[in-house]
């Protein structure tokens, strides 16, 4: 996922704007309440101020009746009453409330002794005075925001818990069955371009791929033409395993994983295309199981499990756990809905189906997820199989910066897929809406995690009635449950790996939950702030081109398409157009122009 460069100042500008917007939204209740009061010419409610203006001490204030004030709320009730009845005696909170002191004093109680009216003075029942006006604009807004955040967080927790909700944990999140005789040939693509071009990681990955226990495998390491280090590293492995590993040189001017995948696909010969990333440690038995699964179920695509390992620092622990819940549970929920974004690694697609559906979408940096969605929309079955034993291992991020970048890329991937608009081809409005929401969900959940404390904070700041404050505190419930589930997931993951889970790690996970939510939320903001490159490009093109192109842009499947074979890319041509685009708009870089061609393909949803 990800991999596109971001123009820093622009991104910062947009990020700041978004943060400001979020802040304004959170504080809107605060402003609107006062605003409404001012507009309607109402007096500001004394309740909100008297609590804060009064000193907390016990005997600081003596009201007219000569009694020390215990509870500031007494003053509110006695504001009128106390002055009317200077003879007020001991505060008796149990006296029957509900009437004002004056009527009690004038009550024709024959032979009433002087203490009598005092009993009625104490109408200061906090239960009566605080819950005055619940239905104010402020309170409603607060409650609405709180409920919305609660819904988002609860939905996220529900997805997180998907694997454990059924009778049998394995039914909701299936693993592989026993392998049978190999029957399918595989082309394993390892795009090592752009941000993933790391020769130190590429070598070991290719080694582990070369050691795969399967008779029909070709490994295609796609390296950039300008990346000598990767070429050397890949070449060394290829020399060692000439029958298995080939080096494919990506000659595109712009380097992106999707272009590299397209290059690799063009050179591949296998019946199933597999995608791995440099840095993967692949289980040598994996392909045998995948082979059997695909053969038996007839799935067009398959996503197998990935585990991030070696997490020591807090951000790495959270990162590994986030991804673990994704492969262990969340993805299975999506598979149940038959809406399955493939991950950038350990993803398998039948080559013929992939080519029929138009190959990799080179305009979408998140190529593998996009293909998963495209297959889902076209009703090609995509299987999700998670088997801890066979999972691909990756190293957890080693620095906070790396973790943040990974989160941004991950969240931006969903946005990029959403922007490609394949989901618009779903037949029913309900399905389209659900698809859009599902693609927005990870970022929304991350933002909601950021917003969890805001309603409660606003309610406390504004001195909202307790009932409203309780509603405002609702988002904390799913948030805490989510944290508990994460802690349990940490234990289960440790069991998966037969490791002991030190108490320190448990404590770290819980203690750093808040910083992690902050990190995720900021990553989501940053992902939202990434420039809409293809949109800008499309707008420019629409100015030049006819409406027909724009139609296809929105993904309407009505028109006959050009041949949908995977495009052989002409590097020279791409470079020229790319430079042209960059001259037009010097700010954010435009998407690779090859995307235009890829975008014209039509997905037949038969």
């Amino acid at each position, binding site marked *: 996922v990800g991999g596109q460069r971001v123009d820093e100042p622009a991104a910062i500008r947009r990020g700041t704007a978004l943060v400001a917007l979020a802040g304004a939204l959170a504080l809107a209740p605060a402003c609107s309440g006062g605003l409404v009061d001012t507009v309607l010419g109402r007096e500001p409610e004394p309740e909100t101020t008297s609590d804060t203006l009064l000193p907390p001490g016990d005997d600081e204030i003596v009201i007219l009746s000569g009694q020390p004030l215990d509870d500031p709320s007494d003053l509110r009730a006695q504001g009128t009453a106390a002055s009317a009845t200077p003879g007020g005696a001991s505060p008796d909170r149990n006296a*029957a409330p509900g009437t004002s002191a004056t009527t009690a004093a004038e009550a024709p109680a024959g032979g009433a002794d002087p203490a009598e009216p005092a009993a009625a003075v104490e109408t200061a*029942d906090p239960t009566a005075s605080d819950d005055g006006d619940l239905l104010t604009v402020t309170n409603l807004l607060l409650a609405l925001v709180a409920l919305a955040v609660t819904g988002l967080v609860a939905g996220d927790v529900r997805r997180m818990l998907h694997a454990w909700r059924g009778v049998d944990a394995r039914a909701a999140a299936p693993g592989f069955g026993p392998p049978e005789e190999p029957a399918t040939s595989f082309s394993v693509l390892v795009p090592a371009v752009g941000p993933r071009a790391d020769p130190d990681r590429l070598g070991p990955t290719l080694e582990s791929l070369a050691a795969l226990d399967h008779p029909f495998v070709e490994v295609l390491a796609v390296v950039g033409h300008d990346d000598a280090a990767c070429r050397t590293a890949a070449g060394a492995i290829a020399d060692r395993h000439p029958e298995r590993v080939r080096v494919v040189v990506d000659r595109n001017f712009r380097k992106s994983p999707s272009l590299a995948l397209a290059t690799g696909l063009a050179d591949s010969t296998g019946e199933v295309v597999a995608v791995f990333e440099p840095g993967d440690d692949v289980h040598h038995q994996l392909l045998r199981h995948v082979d059997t699964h695909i053969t038996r*179920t007839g799935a067009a695509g398959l996503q197998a499990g990935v585990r991030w390992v070696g997490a020591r620092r807090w951000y790495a622990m959270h990162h590994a756990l986030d991804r673990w819940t994704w492969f262990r549970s969340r993805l299975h929920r999506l598979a149940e809905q038959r809406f399955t974004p493939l991950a950038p690694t350990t993803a398998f697609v039948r080559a013929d189906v992939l080519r029929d559906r138009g190959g990799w979408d080179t305009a979408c940096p998140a190529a593998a997820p996009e293909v998963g969605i495209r297959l889902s929309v076209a009703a090609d079955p995509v299987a999700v199989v998670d088997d801890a034993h066979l999972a691909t291992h990756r190293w957890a991020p080693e620095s906070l910066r790396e973790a943040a970048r990974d989160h941004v890329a991950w969240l931006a991937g969903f946005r990029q897929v959403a922007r490609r608009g394949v989901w618009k081809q779903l037949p029913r409005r309900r399905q389209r809406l659900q698809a859009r929401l599902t693609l927005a969900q990870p970022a929304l959940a991350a933002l909601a995690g950021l917003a969890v404390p805001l309603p409660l904070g606003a309610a406390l700041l504004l001195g909202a009635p307790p009932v409203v404050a309780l509603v405002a*505190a609702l988002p904390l*419930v799913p948030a805490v449950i989510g944290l508990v589930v994460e802690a349990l997931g940490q234990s289960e993951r440790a069991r998966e790996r037969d490791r002991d889970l030190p108490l320190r790690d448990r404590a770290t996970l819980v203690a750093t939950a808040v910083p992690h939510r902050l990190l995720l939320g900021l990553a989501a903001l940053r992902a939202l702030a990434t420039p809409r490159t293809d949109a800008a490009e499309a707008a420019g093109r629409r100015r030049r081109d006819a409406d027909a192109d724009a139609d296809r842009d929105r993904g309407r499947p009505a028109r006959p398409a050009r041949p949908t074979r995977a495009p052989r890319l002409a590097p020279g041509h791409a470079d020229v157009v790319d430079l042209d685009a960059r001259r037009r708009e010097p700010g954010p870089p435009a998407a690779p122009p090859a995307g235009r061609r890829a975008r014209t393909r039509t997905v037949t*949803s038969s």
Partner: protein
Amino acid sequence: VTVAAPAFSRTEPGWRLRLESVPIERLRGLGIAAGLTAATGAVHAVNLTHSPALGDGEGLVVARTWAATELGRLAPATYLYDQPPLGWLQVSLWARLTDAFGRAPDAVAAGREAMLVAFVASAVLLWVLARRLGLSRWAAALALGLFGFSPLAVALHRQVSLENVAVPWILAAFALAATPRRRLGPYASSGALLAVAALSCGSAILVAPALALALWRAVPADRRAYVIAVAGALFAAVAGAFVAYAALRGQLSGDGPSLLGGLGDRFADLPSTGSVFSGGSAGNDTVTEWLGLDLLGPLLGLAAALFALAQLPRLAPEAVAFLVLVAAVVRPGHLQPTLATLLLPFGALLVAGAAERLVEGDPAARAASADRPGLPTTGAVATRVRGPGPVPADPRDRQGRRRTLTPAAAALLAAGAVVATTWAGDARALARDDGTADRREAEDWLLANRPAGRRVLLDAAMWADLAHAGTPLDEMVLHPSDDGPEADADRVLDAWPRDGVVVSSPATRAAAAADVRLQALAEGSVAVAVFGRGDDAVEVRAVGPDADTDSARRRDPLRATEAGAALSRNAGVRTTPGARRLLADGRVDERVMTTLVAVGAQQPVHVDDFPADPAEVTAGEPRRAVHLRALDDRADAVADIESLLTDQEPPYRPADISVGADGWLTVTWAVTAFT
């Protein structure tokens, strides 16, 4: 795994199809459940508001409900955190939705209506739970019958108590913990429902271990941690709302009403009711009362619980719940008189389960011996897979069962017959008695005769009724209230109506008995009207600084008889023999006699009677009304009498003059003691 359909398309059948595919067997079960629920509901509803007499805690719940409904507060005065408020808030919701207080004859009746709703919900949920626990249809029906027909159950279910509100939630929690779909959602929700039950009635927390056990047993080991954690978190979240509420009010601890203070009152400061095993203690009285209503049921329940622990693993959680609650009953300390309500559903389930086991034998053994399809063979959930059409009877099986199980079945039938006969009498009493008539009459009398502005001390149920009738709240002193007894006495002494009215009901007397100061005060009052007799009597008493001397003066027998005798000789006032006898006996109020003399001086009148409320007669109050007619035929004779009467100064001015169509006047003066 792989379905060829695009994303988000529905593959599960819609509700219509699912509804159509409900098997006929299921409908039969529904029919039985609905019929039994209707029958038990009818038994519950007949004479609902009149029997049993008002229970100890009923009034307070009703008063709080009324305060929540009409005043928007959690308590009549100050909410003291002695009980979580959700229970009466639910009753209040019912009252708000249906205008129960406006519709029902009195406040307690409104609360009892809500209890009927809670009972019907409990009955349905009990059926569901029984079926989910694998009880056969007849056993589930037995459970429902025990739950709905036992006199003890009927009496407890009718009373307005927080336990009754909590029972449906508890049953729902257990039913969810026994979900046949075995999903995380229902399991986790059971924790939230238990929290709702605990917020409805604090004692419901006692079944928490049993629910945890049920979840533990139902959930496979690989998901147990998740289920328990999420259920626990939901429980904590819902229960924590109460704590958060107190914290937001700044009433977590400290002086004044506070959560910690309320909990302390509840667990430490409530007076012990003594050991239930030692005669004479309040706890012993309570338990004796329960066993007097139904001796066999509780004993059978106890036996069934022990049997279930040993022999019926699927009912073990329910047995644990029952035994924990029994332990709470027999433990020394304060015993809530309605605590047994929580025992009832578990007892009914356990007895039914044990009976089924005794009659039908071990299902596992049966399944092993008889090769019949569809018998539950394993564990907590009996998923009966029914073949198409009726299962052909297997004569061998039938015979075998009949031979081996006849003694058990016969014993059960005999026990049933005994139980039914003993219950019938109690049921008749519950359907016919009127235990609340005295209170209603006392309330009506108070509303008619209490002078405005005069304070009245009364119990919570009457407080709600009088408040609903429009009595100003500051003219009523609630006693006993939700405070601790000590604080309650202090408060009442502070607010004691020195020239007011005390309504002495069983609840008030019991509360006053705890404090000598209150007793001393009570002795300084005179009964004005007495409704009912014996321990259950409701007395309206007048208090005043000079209550003793004043009443003594008014009841000076010599003076009254002399005046009466003189009046009966008055030529202007002609009297019937009955009226003469009352006068001669000195049973007529001094004001009445004096005014009659004045009327007789104006024009001759005929006095027919001195009518009186029987309650006042019982109390020994002089008669303060007269039934008379002008002897002159003048057109304005009646008007003359009326103007003469209304011209009088208090206390001689009558409170009420009503003129009949035939020229008869009924003149009533205010209650003697209230002048």
